[in-house]
């Protein structure tokens, strides 16, 4: 099962291209880390994946379904995404109901099991009866991931999942990603958090002003300084220091 981007273009306004000629493939069991400056088109790319936005050129196939011809609701069977801002996503009256929404609507036969597994994996059992907006921001972000996980969809895409998380939730996210990869889910993560996600990435996609400037292995990205700099980015200080001192990064 794969995601196929074929020469994808997108513009909110006809004269202002946001994404230009993006092509890549991703199979289940793989992890694609999407990098780029603020405004490079990363979040737009995620919204194209599940049909919230439709490409203005090229095509996107998710598990063989053309996103231009299918609704977001039907694509959710194959891919679930989370937004950068949890307020754009959370709507249910309790944490449990929020997590139940996707598997129930997708009529997953094992819905109850998926809900319990997501609650357990994301360590939200104790918070299950609470209103999502009574949780701190960091836990609300974990909840958005949990509701995507519970969908049972083979592909999951997360927009800045570690932003605003402290050490405790970062460790949790670490554990969650390891488990999701072990279960063969395909993951697409938009993040500036190279330290956390680069070791997981099977490939890295780098955007600059809506154009793909690099698609390859993390090792190659780290080897050639110019690749990141060419996209207006640089290694975080800690990774730069570790690299200079000959310490392992991946």
């Amino acid at each position, binding site marked *: 099962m794969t995601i196929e981007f074929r020469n994808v273009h997108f513009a*909110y306004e006809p004269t202002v291209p946001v994404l230009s000629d993006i092509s890549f493939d991703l199979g289940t069991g793989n992890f694609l880390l999407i990098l*780029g*400056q*603020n*405004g490079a088109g*990363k*979040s737009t790319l995620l919204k194209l994946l599940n049909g919230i936005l439709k490409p203005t050129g090229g095509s996107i196939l998710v598990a063989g379904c053309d996103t231009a011809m299918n609704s977001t609701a039907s694509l959710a069977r194959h891919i679930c995404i989370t937004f*950068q*801002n949890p*307020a754009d996503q959370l709507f249910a009256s309790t944490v449990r109901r929020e997590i139940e929404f996707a598997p129930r609507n997708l009529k997953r036969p094992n819905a109850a099991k998926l809900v319990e597994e997501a609650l357990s994996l994301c360590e939200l059992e104790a918070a299950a009866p609470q209103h999502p907006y009574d949780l*701190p*921001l*960091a*836990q609300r972000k974990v909840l958005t991931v949990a509701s995507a996980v519970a969908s049972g969809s083979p592909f999951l895409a997360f927009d*800045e999942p570690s*932003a*605003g*998380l*402290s*050490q*405790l*939730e*970062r460790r949790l996210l670490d554990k969650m990603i390891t488990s999701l990869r072990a279960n063969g889910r395909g993951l697409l993560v938009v993040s*500036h958090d190279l*330290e956390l996600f680069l070791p997981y990435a099977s490939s890295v996609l780098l955007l600059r002003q809506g154009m793909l400037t690099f698609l390859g292995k993390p090792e190659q990205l780290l080897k050639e300084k110019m690749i990141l700099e060419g996209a*207006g*980015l*640089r*290694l*975080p*200080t*800690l990774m730069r*220091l*570790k690299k200079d*001192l000959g*310490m392992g990064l991946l």
Partner: protein
Amino acid sequence: MAARILVERFSFRYGPDLPRALADVSLDVPPGSCCAILGPTGAGKTTLLHALVGILGRHHPDSVHSGAMRIGKRAFTPLPRDVMFPEVGLVLQDPYVQLSGVRDTVVDEVLFTLENLGIATEDAQTRVEMILRELGIDQLASRPPTTLSGGETQRLALATMLIAEPQALLLDEPTSALDTAATGRLQQIVKSLHGRATVVITDTHVEFSLPLADQIVVLHQGKVLFAGTPRDFILRMDRFEDVLPVHGWWEVLNRFAQSSADQSQAADLLGKALAEP
């Protein structure tokens, strides 16, 4: 003129039956200096900033509190009950809720701050453009605020505060949505405020704050675990491995120590490396 921020033995509960969100917190931030409050989520960092800017006292009338607080020449017992803006400016952790939602362009959103304060002057437009340029979002000046990315929105929220030239600027996890280039630019901006405004930053990470701060405070479960210079923090950061992502930094410090006379010299090397642009 920058304001001194003094917090003395401040304790706070959101309600009489709720646990203490802050317990005996004391803080002294000299005028024009920068203080970084580090800690995990739920440590009380945001509560403290909301207390300083006045929204805690205003929005939680049933809260229970004790202690004392002073911002510049104004003393509070224990906390301000009216919003302190523009003397104190706060950039919220979630920048989306900070924007007015009634202005059509980025420039107008920033001008809105001055209009609300009744201090819009003839050169206001020029000042707005200058701040947008400083923040690296001048190319977005005519865009609707709702079309900006997360990191761009965060910078716009900061612009709406900077335009009012607050005596104290409180930044609640300002880098959580910023890319590395924007983070570097924000560091330069906070540095440029040194002496002009007292800055308090909260953060769950150390990388952004350590090179900027004159003082580091580690907050955990509402209590101050540590208060001292960045150098002292570096030397003791292994104590905070459970609450802050410092493990990698500790490893680097130990690697520096292998080629240094002692841990203290290694801390200097790490501090120097952190300060490099």
